[in-house]
């Protein structure tokens, strides 16, 4: 059953067209990896799904409900669609625990005690329980990103959007963060991730999409994309990634 439907989405910043007709269906429990060069539209697509960016034409549906265009309750949509950013974007003036409980308490209407209990359980899962009282600036990048994932999970989203979440991390910290994502995938969380970690994409993705100049140029299972790409552009891109030693 299709859970997330993206149909012919166009998005431009002024004259510059970033998405030129993207269509994609994601079923529940699926993990979709978006790959492609910088500027190919991966991040923009994720931001459009979350309604952080308005789209010019096309349609986005989550669980059968249209979530693009006017009149959509974006705050309600975002409770179902979590997002994790490349630069973590934790709130520096709040402790880890407050970062995680902010949305459940303010938006989800839970009691603080209940939210904190749930937050501590989630933090424990990613090995960050003992840092609950710490402030983001006192944490390493990997720790901050783990907290950011927990913050997104605390609202019980039905789909999680991950925007190059390891791109800003030191190489030795990438593994910890990816391990968490892998675990979430095994638990059956629906995820859409823009990533440069090709090895990881090959492991966890059920579907890989290669974006080029605002279009999904090629899409298929990891085996199809990584072992037998049909498009020249895909082959060139993968060859460049291979040359840089990241596959």
């Amino acid at each position, binding site marked *: 059953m299709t859970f997330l439907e993206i149909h012919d989405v166009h998005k431009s910043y002024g004259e510059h067209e970033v998405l030129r007709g993207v269509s994609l269906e994601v079923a529940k429990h699926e993990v979709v990896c978006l790959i492609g060069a910088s500027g190919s539209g991966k991040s923009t697509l994720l931001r459009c799904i979350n309604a952080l960016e308005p789209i010019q034409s096309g349609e986005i549906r989550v669980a059968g409900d249209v979530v693009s265009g006017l009149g959509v309750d974006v705050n309600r949509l975002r409770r179902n669609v979590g997002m994790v*950013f490349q*630069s973590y974007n934790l*709130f520096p003036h709040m402790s880890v625990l407050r970062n995680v409980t902010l949305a459940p308490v*303010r938006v989800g209407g839970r009691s603080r005690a209940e939210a904190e209990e749930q937050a501590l359980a989630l933090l424990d899962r990613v090995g960050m329980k003992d840092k609950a009282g710490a*402030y983001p600036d006192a*944490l390493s990048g990997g720790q901050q990103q783990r907290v950011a994932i927990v913050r*997104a999970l605390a609202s019980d989203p039905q789909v999680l959007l991950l925007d190059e979440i390891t791109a800003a991390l030191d190489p030795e910290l990438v593994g910890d963060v990816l391990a968490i994502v892998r675990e979430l995938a095994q638990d059956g969380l629906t995820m859409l991730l823009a990533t440069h970690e090709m090895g990881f994409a090959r492991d966890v993705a059920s579907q890989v999409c290669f974006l080029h100049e605002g279009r999904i140029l090629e899409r298929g299972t990891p085996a199809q994309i990584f072992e037998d790409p049909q498009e020249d552009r895909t082959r060139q891109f993968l060859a460049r990634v291979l040359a840089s030693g990241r596959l």
Partner: protein
Amino acid sequence: MTSGAQTEEVAARPTPPQRVLPTAVVALLVAVLCALAAGLALWSLHRMLEPPAGVDALLVALALVALLPLVPAVRAFGDDRRRARHLAAGRLAPARHEAASGREHAHTAMGYALAVLVCAGLVWFTTANDGAITTTFLRWEFLRSSFANVLDAFWINVEVAVGAQLLVLVVGLVVAVMRLLPGRAGRPLRWLAIAYVDTFRAIPSIITLYLVGFGLKLAQVPFFKDLSPVWLAIIALTLTYSSYVAEVYRAGIESIHPSQWAASRSLGLSYGMTLRTVIVPQAVRRIVPPLLNDFIGLQKDTALIGVMGVTDAFAQSRLTASNVFNLTPVIVVAVLFVLITIPQARYVDRLLAKEQIRTGRS
């Protein structure tokens, strides 16, 4: 090949030290001249005060302090002698070391000597014209007699300042948020906010005080006509300073990275909630230093409320000053303003330091 040989040659023969003697001579001359100037100034102070023995001893001590820059100046000569000795024995590196130390001593001597000269100038200024300046500004008996009066009146300044500051914190934020309202719906309010800031930031606060203080009463404006002058002063200063502080708030809010908005909105928080819980709390932490600036400005402007007929510390001091034909009471007010400002500055420093430690920011 040739370049390699050159490098070797340079490495084998370090550059010889520069001479120190000219600098040392200049330093000694400057130190002596400044000490002489200080001596003259202190002598003139002694003649003016005709002080008892205790104060005289203090003056002698000050004269000795004025001689202190001579110490490094003399040391510079010693360094120069050692430099010459090392150089004669072919020990270039120790010679360079002594030369550097000598120059440092000479520069220190000149720095301190010039500071002595500035202080001597100030002392001379206060004793000029047979101490007329001191007797005009600083007479102990007037200081004592006016202090209680002026201090009493100063509470009105404090009252007005604190009242206006509390209101400014709120009004300034409201105006800043109005100015940042998004979309077509927010446009008229944005314009109003801009118009308000443009107007009241431009009007001199003394004029606003005058107009509010007399105008509202004259026009018999309901509610406002019954307010006490102190409240009218608070309102006038709030009008002026909210326009400054609104701009400070706006700068603070706009300085928060858009990714914080994105993160908060992506969690499902609304625009208003994001502003309240994520953006403004961070902005406020950043704007504390410029906010203190505006608050000190506001405190100082409470000295203007005399124009609306309130007897504040400055008005009171002028009254006393014209009675005794001496400006000492006015100095008392000036000192009081300084005294209340310093603790605030230190408090803000401590606040920021604590915040940095708490959030782990370096």
